[in-house]
């Protein structure tokens, strides 16, 4: 394990970004989101980002291809540039888990080559949590916030950032920057263990730490789907997309065309199941009421996805939707309301 003083982190970021793109939490106009590191950027590793880390692999808008027209002639142009390797720094355990959930969507046949290219080139440096928020409930999904995986795992404790490479990619990155680090000793490891212990204690006491998901099993699909509670749960929903756009696991997108000056650019952009035109087809919409749309989101995360993916829920308990819903309705409340009596 290596260590670096926190006040030297900018040197580390400068070094990494000198050879490759570095994506990390940056504060712009008061809000912290993952963004490319640039000289003078206000890096903030102490708060949860507004948007999740998924943008790096699955950006909100992404060009797919281009049709160039000239008179009556149409050329199809591949707009994919060779993806260069990049470093994604400061990913929390919940967001890291979300990549695994996205992989199960994008990397199974048919493989999403746009996603795959980025996923392969991304070096993920995770950061262990030490100060969870009241909205956090990752532990409900079996995630250990204090010990994230990734190519490199880092911990912040006692004025130092500790660095531990886990994979070949991680080792390669470590080699490139190790000059800046000192070797950590057993004393340091003890400090980290102490911090982990403290954090785990806080985590176990969080309000949503013990939401019970056991009621969400594939065999209860019909029962859950027909639950009368959906109506009151969805009543106040505005049908905006805040929850889906801050969510690390939402993976739905829409494909659209943009008419440029010399043709058409085909791109995809995040879609939200909360929107009235989500999965609109020639015959119209499959879900006409907000109740149906609302139910879809949670049924997908808690029932449909797990039944196709060995019981893995498509929620990581990051709590972003808990924080950002304009009317304070969220997945935790849904789980508590229809997830069976253990939640009472």
């Amino acid at each position, binding site marked *: 394990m290596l260590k670096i003083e926190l006040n030297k982190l900018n040197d580390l970021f400068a070094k990494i970004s000198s050879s490759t793109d570095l994506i990390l939490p940056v504060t712009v106009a008061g809000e912290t989101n993952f963004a490319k590191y640039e000289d003078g950027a206000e890096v903030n590793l102490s708060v949860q980002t507004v948007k999740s880390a998924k943008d790096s692999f699955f950006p909100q808008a992404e060009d797919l291809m281009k049709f160039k027209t000239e008179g009556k002639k149409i050329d199809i142009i591949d707009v994919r540039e060779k993806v260069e390797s990049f470093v994604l720094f400061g990913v929390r355990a919940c967001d890291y888990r979300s990549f695994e959930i996205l992989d199960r969507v994008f990397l199974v046949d048919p493989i999403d080559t746009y996603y795959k290219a980025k996923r392969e080139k991304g070096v993920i440096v995770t950061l262990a949590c030490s100060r969870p928020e009241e909205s956090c409930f990752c532990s409900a999904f079996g995630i250990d916030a204090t010990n994230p995986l990734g190519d490199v795992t880092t911990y912040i404790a006692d004025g130092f950032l500790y660095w531990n490479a886990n994979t070949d990619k991680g080792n390669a990155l470590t080699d490139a920057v190790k000059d800046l680090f000192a070797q950590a000793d057993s004393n340091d490891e003890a400090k980290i263990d102490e911090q982990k212990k403290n954090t785990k204690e806080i985590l176990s006491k969080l309000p949503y730490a013990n939401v019970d998901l056991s009621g969400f099993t594939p065999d209860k699909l019909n029962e859950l789907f027909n639950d009368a509670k959906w109506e009151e749960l969805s009543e106040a929903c505005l049908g905006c997309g805040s929850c889906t756009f801050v969510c690390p696991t939402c993976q739905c997108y829409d494909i659209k065309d943009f008419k440029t*000056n010399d043709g058409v650019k085909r791109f995809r952009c995040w879609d939200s199941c909360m929107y009235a035109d989500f999965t609109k087809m020639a015959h119209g919409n499959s879900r006409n009421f907000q109740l149906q749309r609302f139910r879809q989101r949670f049924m997908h995360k808690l029932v449909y996805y797990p039944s196709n993916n060995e019981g893995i829920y498509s929620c990581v308990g990051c709590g972003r939707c808990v924080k950002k819903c304009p009317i304070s309705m969220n997945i935790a409340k849904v789980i508590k309301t229809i997830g069976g009596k253990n939640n009472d």
Partner: protein
Amino acid sequence: MQEINKEYQPLIVAFCCNWCSYAGADLAGSSRLSYPANVKIIRVPCSCRVNPMFILKAFQRGADGVIMCGCHPGDCHYTTGNYYARRRMTLLFDMLDYLGIEKERTRVEWVSAAEGVKFSNVMNEFAAKICELGENKRLEDLRCKE
């Protein structure tokens, strides 16, 4: 004719109402009063048909300046159209300015069917002003400039 810098040719979209300003442009034409070729006129029935979205669309598409011309207030073919247009544009232009977009990029002129000279002068002046400002960078859509 206005001397235009050959390197930089600004693109100007002019929305002209059918009854006065488009006729004014016709008069400028039949009086052989020239204005830069980069002024492109779009005919609308009345200035009140000009949706702020059209103006933003023009900027998105790469226009460097957008001008709306209508009948003089009080002379609208539809009686009141340009009065509504005037309020809309006043507020829209103010908003663009508020967002930091150069105020000179947008303009409203009232040009009657009899004012061919004015039409040509206005277009020459406006084109010169836009030349001075240079390319529209603050309200551009890079996808349209590839």
